[in-house]
């Protein structure tokens, strides 16, 4: 009885830790996306403040290529849309993982309780 509970406890603990790792990884991704969105927003503000005949360049590898301002604006807006969508997707994943983690934590507590009881029982029998 005691061993069985211990085994369950161990496997539950493992999956809890796995979920925790997954969550950490995904939160990091979310932070990176947030940073990218911020950077794009700042660029958008800067582009919006420019005169229509302003010269805009885009760096592609080691060279600068001249771009139309309208095209640059469109590009940045498109990228912001994409990043926002990604953030939404990641947020959903985070919510799912957090729930999973809570479930694991709960069952862990239950198992710990069971384990303690089993130990007490074993001690009484001995």
């Amino acid at each position, binding site marked *: 009885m005691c061993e069985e509970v211990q085994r369950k406890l161990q496997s539950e603990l493992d999956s809890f830790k796995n979920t925790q790792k997954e969550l950490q990884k995904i939160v990091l991704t979310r932070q990176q996306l947030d940073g990218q969105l911020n*950077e*794009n927003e*700042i*660029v958008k503000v*800067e*582009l919006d403040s*420019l005169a229509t005949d*302003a*010269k*805009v*360049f*885009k*760096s*592609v590898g080691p060279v*600068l290529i001249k*771009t139309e301002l309208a095209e*640059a604006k469109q590009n*940045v807006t498109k*990228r912001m849309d994409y990043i926002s969508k990604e953030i939404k997707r990641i947020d959903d994943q985070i919510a799912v993982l957090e729930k999973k983690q809570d479930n694991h934590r709960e069952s862990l507590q239950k198992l710990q309780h069971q384990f303690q009881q089993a130990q007490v029982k074993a001690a009484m029998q001995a």
Partner: protein
Amino acid sequence: MAQISSVAQPHMQQIDLTTLNIQQLSTLKSQLDNELNLFQESLSSLKIAQTKFQNSGETLGQINSESEGKEILVPLTGSMYVPGKLYDTNNVLIDIGTRYYVEKDLDAAKDYFKRKTQFLTEQMEKVQVLGFEKSKIRDAIVEIIELKLQQQKSS
């Protein structure tokens, strides 16, 4: 994500710190320690970014329309330079982020760096205010933990 604040906010639950046990308090404390570390890191990276903008702004001050045609050494690698001549000194190219560059005249460029420096100053102030608030909460938690420990000892 969970937030800790000493100011009451509508979506937050108010918790009396003295009702928590020592374990809960220390979890809270380590959470706050993490956040404070993060703030410290953010502050120093903001400071670095600000210095870069300030340097660029100061460098601009040395360029004017009289600089045209003057000789400079252009770095090809970290240790190799080729001579060059300054051309079109009334306009400069500025990296505005996400690989976009914009041509600006000297005044607009100076204004750009001034704005960026100011923006960063504002952000740093915000982080400082937040950090100050959090460290106050952290101090309060440490105090309560010590109180509880003493109570445990004497009982």
